[in-house]
């Protein structure tokens, strides 16, 4: 397998999605160690993804969570009661 510089972005995308087999990965890294420009592309690609992955997970704040639970409970109870009366 010969890696061409113009294919590097496609290969990196597959690499970061775990889509390359071990042989393909070996060819990719062989190329990266021989090609300074592609290694730079790899580094900036990886850094960009690492930065996004470093963003903290987002969770509901506790007061928001409480008011959401309260709100949802009232809303669905109202729907259930309305349905019940429609049937009568």
């Amino acid at each position, binding site marked *: 397998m010969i890696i061409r510089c113009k294919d590097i972005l496609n290969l990196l995308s597959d690499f970061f999605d775990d889509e390359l087999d071990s042989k393909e990965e070996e060819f990719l890294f062989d190329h990266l160690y021989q090609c300074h420009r592609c290694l*730079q592309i790899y580094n*900036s*690609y990886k850094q960009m993804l690492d930065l996004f992955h470093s963003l903290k997970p987002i*969770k509901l704040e506790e007061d928001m*969570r409480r008011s959401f639970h309260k709100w*949802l409970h009232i809303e669905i*109870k109202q729907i259930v009661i309305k349905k019940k009366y429609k049937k009568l």
Partner: protein
Amino acid sequence: MSKLIKQDDATLVTLAKNGNVSAFEKLIKRYEDSIFSLAYRILQDKEEAYDVLQETALSAFKNLKKFKGKSAFSTWIYKIALNYALMHKRKQKSLEKKMTVISTDDDQKIYDTVDTDKFAEIQTLEDNPLKTLEEQELINILNDSLNKLPEKYRTVFILKELEGKSIEEIAKILNLSPAAIKTRLHRGRIFLKGLMEKYLNLSI
């Protein structure tokens, strides 16, 4: 501890369909953080993300009978949440456009998402400008870059890289083939890399 906690989604769905309100509430509790997170990543506004969570939960309750279990409940509810979040996003964008048109030159500055001069300056100070930034500034750069992506790339990128969904799951949420998702992901990453190039450390 309630017995319902240990039950899987499918069982809770069945119970909820039969009118068990508590089962539905338990289902929502399982996904409320994921829904809020997805909406917040798309909208970057806490109040609007909360609105999306409310709309999603209510819509799921009203339409639960339509859920036939062909996909996982998580995929189904994520699809609802994504639709509401994207609707809010379109409203946000059209409002921004209107406000930009009526704004003065000074007001216009508010809508300039990235102050490139400022970051160009920082870049001359350190090899890796991102390392010198405060956490909030970094978050702003990432969010601003993400905001510049076309919607179809941004949605896939958020689902994969920020929400940790698999390509197969994203394909189900968006009703697209895994190959189409890979293409969008690939193009989105290249787009983002281009947008962020000046902030990335190119030294090896």
